[in-house]
């Protein structure tokens, strides 16, 4: 037992230490890239709760990421730094309400229907921000000042300072990870796993599964909102493309790259995706072909689905299974 606990916790502590040390050794470009990676890791973790834990394949998760980013940009004042203490909660509440509305409708369906319906609702959110004047249409909207966390006269966290932003994001990533890990061990988390394994049986066992699924959907939406908030603050700019269905596809891709069904997989997948994207977009490697980076990405996706259905995390056990034949019973 102690062994497995160490095996679980040591890699996490090492990963945190490496991430914390990174800004002091990496160049400016790479620190910025790592910050983006961590934001996407939070986004991927939020979807993990739905896809990996509950077995609900949502193809519209970018909606919540984008709604949060837009609410952040729309609520930020023109000149004075807003306080995180009210901005982030408001953003999360609005995002959670959107998730409640979309989830309440989408969860009336299941399977293939659910995938299509979530995609369609995300597209609807896309058109809301694309067509409505208040959000700046397809040009998007700028965010002029970054929020601060201040207590009285003391500014504790100023998101305008890159290093502070980096550590605030790391802290949020750790918090989201810990929250999801705690949920995984809770009664609620076990109920969600039960729904994934066999929803009929859960109902037969006396669970009303709909509220559980809806709670997971709303929580996942709100956590995606954390990522969307950070994204808007980091770039200082939002446009409808962050709600586009490519974004929903990308975050699903991160999950399958890393491996469905584990929190580590989601984080590793986000990291792998950013590395792959940078690799394929690198003009040093691919020259003029780099602008067609989605071609190698698409081929990678197809190869991943065909060859490693359990992701990178599942690769060692997958290889072990193919190399060592299963001993015959009896």
């Amino acid at each position, binding site marked *: 037992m102690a062994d497995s606990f160490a095996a679980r916790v040591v890699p996490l502590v090492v990963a945190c230490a490496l991430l914390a040390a990174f800004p002091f050794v990496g160049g400016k470009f790479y620190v910025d890239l790592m910050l983006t990676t961590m934001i996407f890791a939070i986004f991927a973790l939020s979807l993990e709760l739905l896809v990996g834990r509950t077995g609900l*394949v949502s193809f519209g998760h970018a909606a919540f990421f984008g709604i949060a980013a837009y609410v952040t940009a729309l609520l930020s004042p023109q000149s004075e730094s807003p306080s995180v203490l009210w901005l982030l909660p408001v953003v999360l509440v609005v995002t959670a309400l959107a998730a409640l509305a979309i989830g309440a409708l989408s969860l009336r369906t299941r399977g293939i229907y659910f995938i299509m319906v979530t995609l369609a609702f995300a597209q609807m959110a896309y058109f809301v921000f694309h*067509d409505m004047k208040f959000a700046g249409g397809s040009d998007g909207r700028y965010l002029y000042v970054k929020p601060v966390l201040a207590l009285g006269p003391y500014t504790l966290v100023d998101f305008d300072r890159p290093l502070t932003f980096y550590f605030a994001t790391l802290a949020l990533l750790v918090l989201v990870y810990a929250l999801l890990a705690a949920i995984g061990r809770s009664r609620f988390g076990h109920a969600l796993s039960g729904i994934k394994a066999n929803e009929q049986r859960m109902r037969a066992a006396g669970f009303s599964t709909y509220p559980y699924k809806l709670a997971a959907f709303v929580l996942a939406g709100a956590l995606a909102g954390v990522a969307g908030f950070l994204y808007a603050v980091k770039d200082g700019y939002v446009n409808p493309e962050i709600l586009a269905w490519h974004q929903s596809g990308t975050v*699903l*891709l991160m999950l399958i790259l890393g491996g469905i069904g584990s929190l580590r997989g989601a984080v590793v997948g986000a990291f792998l995706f950013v590395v792959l994207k940078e690799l394929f977009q690198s003009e040093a490697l691919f020259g003029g072909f780099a602008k067609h980076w989605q071609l190698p990405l*698409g*081929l990678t996706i197809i190869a991943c689905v065909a060859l490693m259905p359990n992701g990178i995390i599942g690769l060692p056990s997958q290889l072990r299974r193919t190399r060592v034949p299963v001993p015959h019973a009896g």
Partner: protein
Amino acid sequence: MDFAVFLVQCLNALQYGLLLFLVASGLTLIFGILGVINLAHGSFYMIGAYLAYALAPWAAQYLGGGFFTALAIGLVLSVVFGYLLEWGFISYLYQREHLQQVLMTYGLILVFEELRSILVGDDVHGVAAPAWLAGSVQLGSVMTYPVYRLFMSGVCILVGLALYAVIARTRIGMAIRAGASNREMVQSLGVDIRLLYRIVFAAGVALAVFAGMIASPVSSVYPGMGNQVLIISFVVVVIGGIGSVRGALFASLLVGLVDTFGKVLIPQTAGILVYVLMAAILLWRPEGLFRAG
């Protein structure tokens, strides 16, 4: 809105709805029978439009034909393409989870879009309608309506009737209907299910490619044109019910009406109106309006 304007909008709605039906009917059959969620279906529409653009000059130069020769060649190519695609990629997805189907077909979209970008470029192109269809007819005193759009609606109706005849009256249609309502049963009754899957997939691809080809003179040809059609087709399938061709027809026409009149009457919300319709139908009937078959 006077009567002539109303009539023009009705014709537009009908034409848009019928075109959607060509794409969505293939999609719903592939869902219903193969059990595969095919995100790449919009790409086939895009490929069709680009085929019409690329084949037309070629057909004119070497075969002495115009638009219709290109159409015929494109149709043959699309069936072969669908057949090979099913064999090479889709057939690996039948036993897999939905998530993996989503991702593999999503990967295919990226590949198709980039190949399109490499082969044809990212510019917007027009495709010329055949000369004898290029005119307009007079509607009322001031309105005119392009003949080609009428022709499109007519062709879509013919294809729809042919589809109905095949599904309702032939042996293979019987297998398709049975497959849509109970896949395992059809398999255990000795129908060669692999061949049936391959035929249904190739037919679905051909329908979408055909839709793209005949739409190209009206919509022009541009990058990303498939994605828009894909998502609206999803809405159509959700409203109509998975696996139901009749449902796809009804829902396509409904979506065509709502979208067209929405753009005229309340232009501010035109983009989201179709999704509101879908939400309303989901509240009322989560399984769609029609059963499979």
